[in-house]
């Protein structure tokens, strides 16, 4: 998955991963992909729900040890 931008939100606690994600997505064009790395376990459900409500698409999600990785395509 080719990401336009990578956001490092590791070590950040809720709500910061989403706050940063929202900002970073805002700087992308529609159709571009943001890759997010987070360690807050709550990020999984919240990013999924946030992407859905914002009209974005969570295209991929994987776990690499303690790091949660997400790829969100801007809607």
């Amino acid at each position: 998955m080719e990401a336009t931008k990578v956001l490092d939100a590791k070590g950040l606690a809720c709500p910061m991963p989403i706050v940063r994600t929202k900002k970073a997505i805002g700087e992308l064009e529609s159709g571009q992909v943001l890759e997010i790395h987070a360690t807050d376990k709550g990020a999984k459900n919240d990013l999924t729900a946030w992407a859905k409500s914002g009209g974005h698409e969570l295209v991929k999600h994987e776990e690499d040890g303690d790091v949660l990785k997400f790829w969100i395509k801007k809607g």
Partner: protein
Amino acid sequence: MAVNKMTSKEVTQKVFNKEKLFVFDVRNESDFQDWKIEGDNFQYMNIPYFELLDGVEEILDKIPTKMEVLVVCAKEGSSIMVAEMLSYAGLDVAYLEGGMKAWSEHLEPVKVGDLKDGGELYQFVRIGKGCLSYMVLSNGEAALIDSTRMTDVYLDFAAEKNVKITHVFDTHLHADHISGGRTIAEKTGATYWLPPKDATEVTFEYQALEGGNDVKIGDTSINIHSLYSPGHTIGSTSFVVDEKFLLSGDILFIDSIGRPDLAGLAEDWVGDLRETLYNRYRELSDELVVLPAHFMIIDELNEDGSVSEKLGILFAKNHGLNIEDESEFRKMVTENLPPQPNAYQEIRETNMGKINPDQEQQREMEIGPNRCAVR
């Protein structure tokens, strides 16, 4: 306006006193639907914090001004953010300190009765999760039953009461919460009792708890008499304390009965469950006060926050004790089961000593409501 902080203890008092509270839960919808703070006179609103990042103007008129408002999230961070935004907009609101994580871990000790010669029995109400544990105190000694992993609460309580914990029991191998029994026994030198039929795979030393065992607490001899009562698990054991109280574990609750499927197949144990509830318990005195290891709904709380009822009343009113037809009973407890508790297999393995998750992992495993009953 100020952003206030409310503790789980303060919210617990509001639940006990049936006070009003407007709970503004900013977790995502599925987490809120699955599990929330319950109170008889609480009102709710759920809007995830991530839908409020651009401001709270649009929701201001949905928040009451004549009622206390508590903003709640998983771990506190997002609720502080939202509470600050509301406060900036002129509202007077509080956030829940430590979020649902702290709510899940809060234990409120409630005295449920006096025992002979000055002894006392306390129930520790884990209000956010519905787990109930017990401490029997008598003459400088104490026994602990079905303790949670928040071991400091019991150790501090024992120190405050000036008693030494000498016996620790689990009525069965728990599947919904991590037991603090082993840790407390190690720290205090107390004997840790487990039903051997539930403990075939445990990796540590324990004292076998068999039906008919009697244990004395303090030199005035508060008697704890164990009664083999299988059905929730094959080893499930109840206790009669001071010939007055029946600690029923996860076999019998106030408004429901134990589910037989968390450690094996429901079909295997449904017969045991029937035998325990319809025969063994029937032989006991109606006057015994039943003290279960869980409550399911907030309606089960008494005025003082405790959870208890006389056995005779349960025989009259608890639906699960009043199904004459055995096949209908069998059907109810094998086909009508709620979802299984979060991570229940990992919780069982932790309680067996097979895996050793760290504190944060233990918290994650216990997230959500308990689901040990069928109604």
